[in-house]
């Protein structure tokens, strides 16, 4: 079991081990929804919320249900089911109590169900053997890291509307290149902390 403090894991998950820029998880929605800054902020917030909740939730299910029953090999499929159900639940909850937030998140909330970064965070939590507090920190940090990455690239892509991109690189191609450049820039944080 790793003994890194939860707070440090949180910071590391945002910068040094950014789930998007160092693990390249959640790329599909990252590329699809990063055209507009406000949409990116909406999706980013939704991911932060869902990741912060599902990572500890999956921790509890894994260590309190799957492991005692000796069926931990079902972890992958159970995590997916839990994430899907949770997203559904959150959607209903938000629609009921905060219509404003519901409209702001709009279509993004159901989209998150198929965001592999969410599942990735749960699986990292498992292979890195975090305890509960660390799982909370990691879930929140990974969410914030993902949100940070998509907000940054949305800002860049919006700005790029004014620049002269060569025709073959327009659209997703240039977005992929920028993502690569951003990932390299984030590698500058790499030596600070390690949570592998």
């Amino acid at each position, binding site marked *: 079991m790793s003994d890194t403090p939860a707070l440090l894991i949180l910071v590391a998950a945002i910068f040094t081990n950014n789930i998007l820029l160092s693990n390249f998880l959640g790329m599909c929605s990252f590329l699809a929804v990063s055209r507009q800054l406000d949409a990116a902020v909406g999706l980013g917030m939704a991911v932060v919320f869902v990741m912060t909740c599902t990572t500890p939730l999956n921790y509890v*299910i894994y260590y309190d*249900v*799957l492991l005692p*029953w*000796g*069926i931990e*090999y*079902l972890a992958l*499929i*159970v995590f997916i*089911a*839990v994430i899907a*159900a949770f997203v*559904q*639940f959150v959607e*209903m*909850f938000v*629609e*009921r109590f905060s*219509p404003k937030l519901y*409209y702001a998140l709009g279509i993004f909330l159901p989209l998150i169900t198929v965001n592999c970064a969410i599942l990735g965070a749960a699986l990292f939590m498992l292979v890195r053997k975090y305890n509960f507090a660390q799982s909370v920190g990691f879930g929140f940090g990974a969410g914030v890291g993902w949100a940070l990455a998509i907000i940054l690239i949305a800002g860049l892509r919006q700005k790029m509307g004014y620049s002269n991109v060569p025709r073959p690189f327009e659209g997703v191609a240039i977005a992929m290149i920028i993502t690569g450049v951003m990932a390299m820039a984030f590698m500058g944080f790499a030596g600070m902390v390690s949570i592998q």
Partner: protein
Amino acid sequence: MDIVTPVLAFTGLLIGLSTLLIVAERFLVGYGVCKIDINAGERDIEVEGGQTLLAALNENSVFIPSACGGKGSCGYCKVTVLSGGGPILPTETPLLTRQEIRRGVRLACQVKVREDLRIQIPEEYLNVQLFTAAVDSTRYLTHDIKEIRLALRDPPEISHRPGQYVQVQAPSPEGPVFRAYSISSPVYQPNVVELVVRLVPGGIGSTYLHNLHVGDTVTFTGPFGEFVLSEDPDVEVICVGGGCGVAPMRNIIYTLYQRWPERSCWLFFGCRGTSDVFYLREFQQLARKHPNFHVVYALSEELTPAEEWGGETGFIHLSVDKHLKPGVRRQAFLCGPPPMIEAVTQVLLEKGMRPAEIFYDKF
């Protein structure tokens, strides 16, 4: 290898999650009772949240016209939502103009009631009622146009203005649809509604109405329509109809001569051939009683040798041009196919009428 435990555990987990969601739905998706304020306090209704605005209004006997039955394809159910409707949906934008979007116009069938709403609807929608009626008689006016007389049952009387229409509910494989038909019976016969229906091949509404038998029950909502007959007896009334577009004219003319026997009125009716002519004798009789009523029927197609015709020939806008003198105070009501309406509008404008005095129903 033990296979029962994992299967049971996984199934149990899924059932648990589903139960959680169903329970959550029960408690969360009910929005409770929402208030809808119509036209700044003129009518306040309380509805169960979670349904569409159109359904909520219908349930409370506020009938908004809708031809597609809430699928968001006809764009008839426009209402102005002043507060509480949420942002406009992508399903609505194609059917609204930019101006309408700025004013807050929404499609009632797409707006979900989630909170208290303040909406604005045309005043007359509040007078619209749901009627059930029995078919009193039907008769063929031409080979494909039928006159259907409906005797009102509940409520027993309808109060409408000449030129207005009703929305008949017709069954279809995808649920009931509404189709608009003008009322051809005069307003002083409030316990009947007569419709003039041309059979459109494959048409849902006209096929349904043509196949009705005496005694069958028909449901419709109404009255709808913005035409207001001028109350000034010195204003001449011009009615121009084509095909079964004579239906609202008949209502206007009979209503008019009951109130103002001396008022001047012209009826121009364009047909293809003699087999399309109907109501002519009825109108000629009326013209003998009221010397200021002028009836002009014109046939647009060449006569076959077997046909006899004492009236005019050519397109109807040419007859309008020939008979009307310029510079008379007038009000016009046009009803027929779009090219006819355009041609007649052009002629009327040349005679000095203002666009605001020309009403039309295109079909």
